[in-house]
């Protein structure tokens, strides 16, 4: 039966030659290579749970009066969107668990992308020939964050409505075209009942479409270029070593997918996330305190909280400070990430293709830059919760803000320099040629003696391929 199906397909597509190679494709076994897969399986789960949620969600800002089973909100006026999320949470069977799994999956999705990006960065996996996939991956991170923000906004609760309010103000601040952009996207001056429907179109159609396309390109390029490899005995730039796709890798990957979904189901079932019924419906004249965005927006919220006053008057026009920290800063941050392969190429001048990865210590200056930027982002994310911290420690929020402003300027350079120093010391603190245990390649001569030959690739010195001499 299967044999006949395979023959039928091969008669029409000539698929056997592809299948033969594909089934015997080598996939390296290393835990760090699972990070991207975790993001992928979160995405699949997000599409599945999101489809379920869409069937019950009403994208409307129209005023309704709540008459459902959740007593604390009985008789409260709210948008139809918020009412539909309450109905989904309290009346649709399995609705709440689906909503919570969806939200948890979104949180883990972006987290997995970020950790995956860090792995690629610190191991130099973005170097030639993999720059294109770094660009696509950065795009996926940005799309993932936008997807998260738009989804977070849909319930139209007090927290998410405040988030949209801030986003509107950021758009409004763009010089020359800001008011037009804001009015066109929101369909008028904030708040408008129409914007919730537009956010839904972004969240369930445009952004997922782009995500699907980018994920496809990302995977196709990985497939075509083959995986990178951590250096080790017998490993060279010219070979990839690992388990065959069928059945070893396929089984492990399917198993991983199921475990990822299992963990998200556990989180969604047992750990409450985004209980919108506690926040209440959005009302433009009230805001709750403390207010927290989802974790991956925290750094953007943090920079808004830490930045000192910074309005600029220019030829009778105003450039609000929020434009600088809310538009220019994230733009520059993402541009820096996106262009990193080109920046590093400019610095090192290294033009060779690399399939063997760096260890973190191998390139101290890159690791230093990475840790410095990471520290910067972490401090900003912490700053996004400065009111929570103030409440927790029982000190005025001004103290936390001032302390974090200092930390933002001091910690990243110190952390970066320490990383640089530690990596350098792990390398022996001396130039490659002076190291005691360096990598050599031996050749046996016709007379039975041994002679040393030059290593034949730039990675050899930093890494691995041959046996360590004494």
């Amino acid at each position, binding site marked *: 039966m299967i044999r006949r199906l395979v023959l039928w397909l091969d008669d029409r597509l000539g698929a056997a030659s592809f299948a033969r*190679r594909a089934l*015997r*494709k080598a996939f390296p076994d290393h835990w760090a290579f699972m990070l991207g897969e975790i993001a992928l399986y979160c995405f699949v789960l997000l599409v599945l749970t999101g489809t379920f949620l869409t069937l019950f969600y009403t994208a409307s800002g129209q005023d309704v009066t709540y008459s459902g089973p959740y007593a604390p909100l009985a008789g409260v006026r709210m948008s139809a969107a918020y009412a539909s999320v309450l109905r989904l949470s309290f009346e649709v*069977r*399995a609705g709440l*668990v689906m909503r919570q799994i969806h939200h948890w999956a979104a949180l883990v999705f972006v987290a997995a992308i970020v950790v995956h990006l860090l792995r690629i960065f610190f191991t130099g996996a973005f170097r030639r020939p993999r720059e294109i996939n770094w660009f696509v991956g950065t795009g996926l991170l940005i799309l993932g964050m936008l997807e998260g923000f738009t989804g977070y906004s849909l319930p139209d609760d007090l927290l998410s409505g*405040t988030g949209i309010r*801030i986003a509107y103000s950021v758009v*409004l*601040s763009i*010089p020359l075209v800001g*008011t037009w952009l804001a*009015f*066109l996207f929101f*369909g*008028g*001056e*904030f708040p408008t009942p129409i914007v919730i429907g537009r956010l839904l179109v972004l969240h369930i159609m445009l952004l997922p479409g782009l995500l699907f396309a980018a994920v496809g390109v990302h995977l196709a390029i990985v497939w075509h*270029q*083959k995986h990178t490899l951590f250096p080790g005995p017998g490993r060279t*730039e010219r*070979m*990839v070593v*690992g388990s065959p796709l069928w*059945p*070893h890798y396929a*089984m*492990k990957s*399917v*198993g991983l997918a*199921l*475990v990822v979904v*299992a*963990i998200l*189901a*556990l989180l969604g*079932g*047992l750990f409450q996330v985004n209980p919108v019924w506690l926040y209440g419906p959005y*009302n*433009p*004249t009230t*805001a*709750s*305190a*403390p*207010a927290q965005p989802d974790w991956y927006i925290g750094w953007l919220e943090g920079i*808004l*909280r830490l*930045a000192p*006053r*910074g*309005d600029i008057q220019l030829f009778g026009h*105003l450039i*609000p400070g*929020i434009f600088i920290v809310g538009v220019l800063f994230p733009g520059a941050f993402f541009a820096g990430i996106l262009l990193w392969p080109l920046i590093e190429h400019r610095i090192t001048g290294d033009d060779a*293709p690399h*399939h063997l990865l760096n260890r973190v210590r191998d390139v101290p200056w890159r690791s230093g830059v990475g840790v410095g930027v990471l520290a910067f982002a972490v401090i900003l994310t912490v700053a996004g919760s*400065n*009111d929570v911290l103030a409440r927790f420690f029982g000190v005025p929020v*001004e103290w936390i803000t001032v302390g974090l402003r200092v930390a933002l300027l001091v910690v990243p350079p110190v952390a970066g320099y320490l990383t640089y120093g530690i990596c350098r010391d792990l390398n022996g603190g001396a130039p490659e040629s002076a190291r005691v245990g360096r990598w050599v390649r031996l050749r046996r001569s016709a007379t039975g003696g041994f002679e040393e030959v030059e290593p034949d690739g730039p990675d050899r010195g930093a890494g691995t391929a041959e046996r360590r001499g004494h």
Partner: protein
Amino acid sequence: MDGVRRQPRATGNASPGRPAANGHGRLVGTAFILSILASLALTAVYAVGGQPQLEGALLAVSLGTLGAGIILWARDLLIPEEISEEREPEPSPPGMRAAAETALQMGGRQLTRRTALSRLLIGALGALGLAALFPIRSLGPGPGRSLFHTQWSAGARVVDNEGHPVSVRDLEVGSVVTVFPEGFVGSPVSQVLLIRVEPGSLQLRPGRLAWAPDGVVAFSKICTHAGCPVGLYDASTHQLLCPCHQSTFDVLSGATPVFGPASRPLPQLPLEARADGVLRARADFQEPVGPGFWDRP
């Protein structure tokens, strides 16, 4: 050329049907049985009305044991195999590159030979692209002057969020209330904070003392930083705090920012109290309320 070469793993403790495999097989089988039981239980929970915690936990057991079973199967029951595959160099062979380049150029030359036509084609595509942009204008109204005014007007009565007119007598010193122009209760752009302080303590800009009858000052509630409602008032320090980014405004000096990211004071609404004590606006705000934008003076 195959490019694939088998390489048995060095550890070599794997052979099909080795005794240890039976124990592993039992483990995998148990995992799958657990998964089946959890899935059946999940169906039962759903059928009797559903319960979020049980649904999540049973789904986790069902998927988790299934995934663990498959991973254990792959790890312990498959014959370990490490294969190595040769990489093809990234650039195509030089001959192929040259051939592709030629094909591109030959085709292109046929097009560019017709200079006038190819220019017209570019022009047509550009015009079409431009025309396709116009529907964007349908998305919303232009901003016009709408950001420069609110629903407050001369003589508009000040009402609370239930629509009742507010008079000076209703307000004790130190109290704060959110108010709107009569007929526009709940209006996001016209929301105003009414605060009563000791009249002598006010240090408003020249000419604005008259806007605060009996020490009642009115400020736009929309933060000049990012537009959140400035909801928190500390009567002891006379400070307003925005919960979003902690911009802090000093009420006595005309809601000037004293901490945080906001640069501009909250716009002050000119008030008057007639003989009956009911508060009214003398006029609309004299500057745009809310966060900054390009055309703001």
